[in-house]
């Protein structure tokens, strides 16, 4: 039923030389074509690229499972932790993964409220990324407990020990509530966003099993204008709630450190510094994922160079904020006249872990500065390399904050070094395996581009032209 009224079907070259990241960049694709394009990865067999990525991810995941099984069976003594450095790799990974998730919420909620239309092409996959990243993050405190089957002890529940309640004054407990709320609200937001697309797939699928699954998931959605009207209100409300939530989550994560008295941790700078870093690292990961996905799944038409450029600008902004925070920390350490504080930062700059510090500065503060150049922002290979550097740099940032402050604090007789064991490295690899396995399955079974949002953008672009 090709209609005459739908905007023209101009052939679109693989990478359009469009100048601005305007929306509905797919403005010239007709509505049915959008459905077909988005559904294609779900109904066709995956290509060699997908299988190669999937094989690599599952191998990493298997390594991780083996390492975690060994750790749980033996005890956390198999990690390189010692009396002085009681937190290291696991908490680094935890903060790293939580941070990755934040870009998803930023794209889906904050950019929605700011009416940034370019977000529509990438919002769904960014939200999925948030959920998988939070899952990976939650894994680390869980296995650090050593007895993960008792993890429910972190929840306040009536128990036979008094009842002895959890300590509500501890930021570690705030973290439990923040992470769980974040995961729940992200899931609700993600699912609500997919209901109209599930209905589209239900009405376009003949395969009985798929049809049944989409029928259940679409909750009887029929595209009623009354429902759409409420739907827009509901998603705006949820976006409004997710915005302060995402800021609170990483602020609370930073308080795990900032409320202690350790030099290098005990600073009021931490909450904004952590939030900016989280958004920065998250955009790095979104960029990495989308550059791979658009090539593997042939979605260059929807995830355009203009989208990548917009993300590059956000990376430049947040990377500069992070760089400014590093400078502020150093300045404050000097300005405080506190010997311990001064030493903590001197130790970061020139101590045994200085190489980590300089990787962090190079990858996070310096490398993104190349994005001031428009040519750099539009070069996909360069953006890909930069996004990997950002991921690496932000992982090292957390490592630097955690380990350099702990290994040499107030009491020199306790000073020691920390070195991760193969079990810790394998667990980190496993978390990447879990993340990418989930993501690769996601792009095969769920619509990774929000069809209805792209269609709305296309419809409105046609309206503006008229």
């Amino acid at each position, binding site marked *: *039923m090709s*209609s*005459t*009224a*739908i905007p023209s079907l101009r052939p679109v070259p693989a990478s359009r030389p469009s100048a601005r990241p305007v929306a509905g960049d797919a403005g010239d694709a*007709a*509505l049915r074509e959008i459905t077909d394009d988005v559904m294609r990865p779900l109904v066709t067999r995956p290509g060699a690229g997908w299988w190669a990525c999937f094989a690599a991810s599952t191998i990493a995941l298997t390594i991780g499972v083996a390492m975690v099984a060994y750790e749980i069976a033996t005890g956390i003594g198999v990690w390189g932790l010692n009396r002085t450095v009681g937190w290291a790799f696991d908490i680094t990974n935890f903060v790293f993964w939580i941070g990755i998730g934040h870009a998803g919420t930023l794209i889906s909620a904050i950019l929605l409220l700011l009416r940034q239309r370019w977000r529509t092409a990438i919002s769904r996959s960014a939200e999925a990324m948030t959920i998988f990243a939070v899952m990976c993050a939650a894994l680390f405190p869980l296995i650090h407990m050593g007895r993960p089957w008792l993890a429910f002890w972190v929840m*306040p529940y009536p128990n036979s020990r*008094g*009842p*002895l309640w959890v*300590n*509500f*004054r*501890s930021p570690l407990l*705030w973290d439990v*509530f*923040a992470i769980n*709320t974040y995961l*729940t*609200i992200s899931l*609700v*937001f993600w699912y609500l966003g997919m*209901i*109209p697309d599930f209905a589209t797939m*239900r*009405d*376009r699928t003949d395969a009985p099993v798929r049809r049944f699954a989409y*029928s259940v998931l679409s*909750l*009887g*959605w*029929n*595209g*009623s*204008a*009354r429902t*759409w*009207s*409420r*739907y*827009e*209100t*509901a998603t705006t*409300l*949820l976006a409004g*709630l*997710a915005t*302060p*939530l995402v800021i*609170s989550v990483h602020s609370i994560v930073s308080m795990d450190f900032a409320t202690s008295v350790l030099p290098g941790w005990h600073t009021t700078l931490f909450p904004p510094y952590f939030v900016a870093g989280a958004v920065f690292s998250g955009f790095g990961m979104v960029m990495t994922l989308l550059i791979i996905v658009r090539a593997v799944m042939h979605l260059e038409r929807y995830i355009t160079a203009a989208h990548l450029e917009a993300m590059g600008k956000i990376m430049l902004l947040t990377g500069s904020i992070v760089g400014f925070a590093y400078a502020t920390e150093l300045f404050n350490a000097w300005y405080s006249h506190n010997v311990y504080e001064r030493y903590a930062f001197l130790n970061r700059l020139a101590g045994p872990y200085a190489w980590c510090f300089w990787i962090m500065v190079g990858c996070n503060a310096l490398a993104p500065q190349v994005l001031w150049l428009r040519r750099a922002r539009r070069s996909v290979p360069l953006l890909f390399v930069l996004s990997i550097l950002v991921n690496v740099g932000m992982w090292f940032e957390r490592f630097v904050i955690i380990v350099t402050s702990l290994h040499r604090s107030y009491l020199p007789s306790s000073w020691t070094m920390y070195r991760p064991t193969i079990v810790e490295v394998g667990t980190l690899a496993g978390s990447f395996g879990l993340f990418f396995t989930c993501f690769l399955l996601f792009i095969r079974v769920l619509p990774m581009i929000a*069809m*209805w*949002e792209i269609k*709305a953008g296309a*419809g*409105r672009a*046609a*309206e503006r032209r*008229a």
Partner: protein
Amino acid sequence: MSGAAREFIVARFGDERHVVDAVRAVRERGLRVFDVYAPYPVHGLDEAMALRRSRLPWATLAGGCSGFVAAIAFQYYAAVVSWNLNVGGKPDNSMLAFIPIAFEITVLGAGLATAAAFLARSGLRPAIRARTVDLSATDDAFVVALRCRQTAFDRNLVERLLFEHGAQTVAWKVLDL
């Protein structure tokens, strides 16, 4: 809105602007629009259909307030009434330290209440048979449905009106909506 099968006039459009015009025209003739089905939220349709502003924000407010009160009350009960534990000499009632969790539970309550109220009010629930008027309404078409038994209903007039405003097809259907 559910129940026995009823007669409808179902008009299909290929362009969102035509739909808005048609709805406006139909309503100007004093006829009620049963509903419009679209693949995405169409701008201007709310006004054309004279839909009331959603009251969902009240559900959000109620959920948020309940969450806040419950979180503060429970933390106070656990830390002050039920088992007061001295942690580093801090006061039992460390109200400031209870705020972060109260904030999280406020957001959680507000978010879940919003989602639940939206689903309940829209009649969306698992395994329900979709009350579909036209399968392409979730894909690429805009569908206007009118109840046939209305006062001042003139089938010919309505059909002409819909075609005049860009309908591609107009059909007479018995549906169980």
